[in-house]
């Protein structure tokens, strides 16, 4: 029997602002621009919003800041802030609140001016006392150790990691909104400066500005709005640790749990998914999530990607916007996964369009700590 939340709510509006560089605009200003863009896209008014779901890396109480800046007195406010996966969780929380009738129009929003404010990836993490003396660089140290362990256990190579970056760039070259465009080869990645062994600069996500927002309503109402709805068919979350030293196995993420939860709610098989949007903060992420979500056996991710399987023209469409590696990464990337999935489901992705009935968004937060998977579908998947 289908889960009661399957297809009960839909994304009916998406918006972005300040992708890449947005000098002179603050994080909350960018968030506000994206929110208004998403509402205009949906054909809904700001004063209809009665549910706010927000997370950022720079506000202590981001959901309050978002509600106040927009001038909304929400009936439901939700501020799960577990890193970049927060927004896949917000999709599920918004669907719950909508289905329960606690709110009627849910706005999920994020904004960051990280690039122009500081020019480097800003860690949201307070130091952990048992780690701080050794000077970890968050978040890369944990991901580098995961990559090193994956190479040790499974023979994964730097060339295979580089293939992930090369595929992302090839998609970005078909996306006019992507920040990093132009040719990129495996040799380029290998020749770039190593930041934290074995990861080089080009194994790491971009540091950009950017804001994103989406609007959700119950499916009955979604039918009457101007955009083709992207229905939330299923979602699941899983959490394994806070600091990477506490991660039981650096090569197996909690996506092993969040994925099956989302697939079960959606009632779909992984092989039915047309588009995978995987949170690629580092090249190792894509490999880990392909394995943990069931697209190749554990340990085979490197060999899976090396022949161009996830590049344009490959066997599996992955991160068609160019990903966090080449499109946009303002610190928390999770909502941009949703924006691309909805764009593809609507058939509005232009040169990078892939036939998409079912799209999976997989968010990652912390240092592989929080995993959240959401499955969106077109009307004919209901």
């Amino acid at each position, binding site marked *: 029997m289908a889960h009661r939340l399957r297809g009960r709510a839909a994304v009916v509006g998406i918006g972005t602002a300040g992708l890449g560089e947005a000098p002179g605009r603050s994080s909350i200003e960018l968030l506000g621009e994206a929110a208004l863009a998403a509402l205009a896209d949906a054909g809904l008014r700001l004063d209809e919003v009665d549910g706010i779901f927000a997370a950022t890396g720079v506000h202590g109480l981001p959901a309050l800041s978002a509600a106040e800046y927009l001038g909304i007195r929400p009936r439901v406010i939700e501020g799960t802030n577990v890193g970049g996966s927060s927004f896949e969780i917000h999709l599920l929380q918004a669907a719950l609140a909508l289905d329960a009738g606690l709110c009627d129009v849910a706005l999920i929003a994020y904004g960051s001016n990280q690039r122009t404010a500081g020019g480097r990836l800003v860690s949201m993490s307070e130091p*952990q*006392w*048992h*780690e701080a*003396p*050794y*000077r*970890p*660089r968050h978040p*890369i*140290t944990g991901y*580098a*150790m*995961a990559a*090193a*362990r994956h190479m*040790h256990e499974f023979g994964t190579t730097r060339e295979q990691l580089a293939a992930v970056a090369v595929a992302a760039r090839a998609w970005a070259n078909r996306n006019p909104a992507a920040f990093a465009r132009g040719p990129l080869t495996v040799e380029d990645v290998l020749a770039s*400066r*190593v*930041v*934290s*062994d*074995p990861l080089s600069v080009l194994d790491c996500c971009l540091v950009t500005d950017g804001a994103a927002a989406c609007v959700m309503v119950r499916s009955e109402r979604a039918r009457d709005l101007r955009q083709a709805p992207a229905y939330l068919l299923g979602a699941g979350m899983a959490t394994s640790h806070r*600091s*990477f*030293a*506490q991660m039981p196995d*650096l090569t197996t993420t909690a996506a092993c749990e969040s994925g099956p939860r989302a697939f079960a709610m959606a009632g779909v098989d992984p092989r039915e998914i047309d588009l995978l949007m995987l949170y690629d903060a580092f090249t190792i992420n894509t490999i880990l999530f392909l394995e943990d979500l069931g697209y190749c056996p554990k340990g085979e991710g490197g060999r899976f990607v090396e022949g161009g399987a996830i590049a344009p023209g490959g066997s599996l469409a992955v991160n068609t916007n160019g990903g966090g590696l080449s499109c946009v990464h303002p610190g928390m990337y999770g909502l941009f996964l949703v924006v691309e999935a909805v764009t593809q489901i609507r058939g509005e992705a232009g040169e990078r369009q892939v036939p998409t009935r079912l799209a999976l968004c997989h968010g990652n937060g912390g240092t592989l700590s929080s995993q959240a998977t959401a499955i969106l579908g077109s009307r004919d998947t209901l």
Partner: protein
Amino acid sequence: MRDATDARPGPEARFKAFLAEGRFMLQRSRSTGRHVFYPRGAVPGTGETDLEWVPASGEGTVYSITVNRTREGAYNLALVDLAEGPRMLSRIEGAETVPIGTRVTARIATIDGAPAIVFAVASQGAA
């Protein structure tokens, strides 16, 4: 309702106080024998509060390692699986990096004016 207030220092302060005395101590549950690091008020996941402090063997194996390369220089960080079971973040002294699986031995060093556990490759006799 039982008040959990306890006037004694917490596990973090106790661990640091032992370190200041030159002792690397771990918590161990009396009933289950399970060791805990980082120090906490109860065994994570199961909640036993019968934790006692026991000396660490100081023996460990490198689970993963990276070298952070900065403008100021390069330094490693390693995850070390302690012989007692828990894993901890530390550094391996005496080499830029070592292979995963290398057996290492702990000592107490001073980092930024405070005592901290570091490791070095175990001697042939210990390996």
